[in-house]
């Protein structure tokens, strides 16, 4: 068993830490406060190839590993969870299904644009009446000559108003249930497609979370992706990968809160000494540090499996479940350690606690992760 990084991964970690510290961290509070999508950061990320880390070079990507991609989401989220999820949704939820299920033509058409960051990607599965029960899709796609015509709407779509290309899940034959669900590639400029309302959120406030509306949206036949009637499987497989990205986001948030709390408790003096010198602080922080490291190992193992063509569905669920709940616990305690200051926006732990909550909800709630893990256990 080898826990060491490759030379490339080590150098990558050095680069992404510097990038996160110098380019992303200074904007984090502002992006949150103003609920502003950090387009300038995305452009900087695109310039150095961060929007296409695990995309093979023949499709214009960097040809890196999923371990590297996970490191990127972690290190970005450590300073700004908004930036982390922009990269995660783009890579895991849009580029990955095209890479894994697209035809050669679809890959050649979309992956170079996504990998270079010229286009941003998104994914639409959730509907007002189809959340955790994703099989209850009400968006329908009907064949019409050389076209598919889509009608319906999607909600809570990350990158919604900034994305150029979307993977959309829709019902193609209602009588077949989940076997009547198919997947499509929709472009921002397609007729009948529009962006609906933007959500006002508790955390990750800089990420553009919007509704997508399809009103007789006509797309060419060749935009259907994967096998007809296998869209539900494509969506579930996509989420398996996406969950590792979100696990890395949660891990990053937790690490960021640990960093802030170590710094603060060493500086803050009460009763004549630094609060880091109290055993209560030390024991609680030791427990949290152990959980953060355990979460990191689960994240890396899940990405390792994906990189090596091994099954990763349950590993992804465990990584996300544990990392998300760790992020919530660490950030909640980080605020507590900061006392009254931690409740204010003067310190980043207030934002981190708000950002952490979503990781227990999106791309499968913690309850869904438990269903996936139990499903494997009792199969």
């Amino acid at each position, binding site marked *: 068993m080898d826990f060491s990084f490759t*030379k*490339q991964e080590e*150098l*990558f970690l050095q*680069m992404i830490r*510097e*990038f996160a510290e110098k380019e992303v961290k200074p904007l984090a509070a502002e992006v949150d406060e103003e609920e502003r999508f950090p387009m300038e950061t995305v452009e900087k990320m695109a310039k*150095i*190839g*961060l929007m*296409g*880390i695990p995309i093979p*070079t023949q499709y214009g*990507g*960097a*040809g*890196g590993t999923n371990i*590297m991609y996970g490191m990127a989401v972690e290190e970005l989220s450590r300073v700004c969870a908004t930036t982390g999820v922009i990269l995660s949704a783009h890579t895991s939820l849009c580029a990955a299904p095209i890479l894994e299920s697209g035809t050669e033509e679809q890959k050649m058409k979309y992956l170079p644009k996504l990998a270079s960051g010229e286009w941003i990607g998104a994914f639409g599965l959730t509907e007002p009446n189809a959340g955790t029960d994703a099989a209850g899709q009400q968006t329908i796609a009907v064949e019409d000559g050389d076209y598919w015509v889509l009608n319906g709407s999607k909600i809570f779509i990350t990158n919604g108003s900034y994305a150029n290309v979307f993977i959309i899940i829709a019902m193609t034959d209602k009588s077949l249930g989940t076997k009547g669900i198919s997947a499509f590639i929709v472009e921002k400029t397609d007729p009948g497609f529009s962006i609906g309302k933007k959500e006002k959120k508790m955390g990750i406030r800089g990420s553009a979370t919007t509704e997508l509306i399809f009103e007789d949206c006509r797309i060419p036949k060749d935009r259907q992706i994967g096998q007809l009637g296998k869209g539900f499987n494509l969506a579930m497989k996509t989420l398996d990968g996406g969950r590792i990205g979100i696990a890395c986001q949660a891990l990053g948030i937790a690490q960021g809160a640990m960093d802030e709390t170590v710094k603060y408790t060493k500086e803050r003096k009460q009763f004549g000494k630094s609060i880091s010198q109290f055993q209560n602080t030390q024991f609680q922080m030791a427990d949290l540090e152990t959980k953060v490291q355990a979460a990191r190992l689960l994240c890396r193992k899940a990405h390792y499996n994906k990189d090596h063509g091994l099954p990763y569905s349950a590993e992804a669920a465990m990584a996300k479940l544990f990392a998300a709940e760790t992020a919530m616990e660490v950030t909640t305690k980080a605020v507590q350690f900061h006392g009254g200051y931690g409740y204010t926006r003067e310190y980043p732990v207030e934002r981190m606690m708000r950002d952490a909550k979503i990781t227990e909800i999106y791309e499968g709630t913690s309850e869904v992760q438990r269903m996936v893990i139990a499903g494997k256990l009792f199969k």
Partner: protein
Amino acid sequence: MPDTTEVKINPVTGTLIREGVPSIMNPDDKGGLEFALQLKDQYGAHVTVITMGLPQAEAILREALAMGVDRAILLTDRKLGGADTLATSSAIAGALRTMDFDLVITGRQAIDGDTAQVGPQIAEHLDLPQVSYMEDLKYDEATKTFTIRKQLEDGYQILEMQAPCVVTALASAVKPRYMSVSGIVTAWDKEVEVWGADRINVPEDRIGKAGSPTSVFKAFPKQLKPAGETFEVTPEEAVELIVNKLKEKHII
């Protein structure tokens, strides 16, 4: 280069304690590299990076490859060890004599020695024109002329030089690019050429310890200055106070 913001000096031997100190690319050299890569972006320049050092300096050359340089050379040999700035510049000039180039860019100075001598010495060894403290660079392809803005303490000069020539660059003048992801992924696919003293054709009494006339008398950590005095006075009183203090110290 050890990260000198983290390095300490052994008070007994007076030498740098390098153990556990992360190695970084020297900031002025990184600035110089960015200028070179901009010439590559704009004019298709072929960029070679050369460093002299211990075998582990390869790590920094990999970083340069990941930033986009075309060729990397590591000059390393026991015979080159213990070199002061003169012996270092003799060795590097020896390597440069074997190559074709239009422009040599060095960092202004290294963060460990802060001498700012190696670049200008290279120019002298090669008998080439030089401008130090470069903060901006333009190139005219037709005339093969570089227009250089040189930083001065109280302003700047604009100078023109014909290729081939030597400049020393300032880190503060430019924001170096990040290594690209694909650059990192492929950084080990390229060769870091390892050159020994036999490749450079410089007499042995000009390189390494033998070629180094400098001897370090003493190295010591800077002592902390005592806290300054604070006076709350009006501007008029302040003038008199400052003038008296300067007189006390025989500065005026």
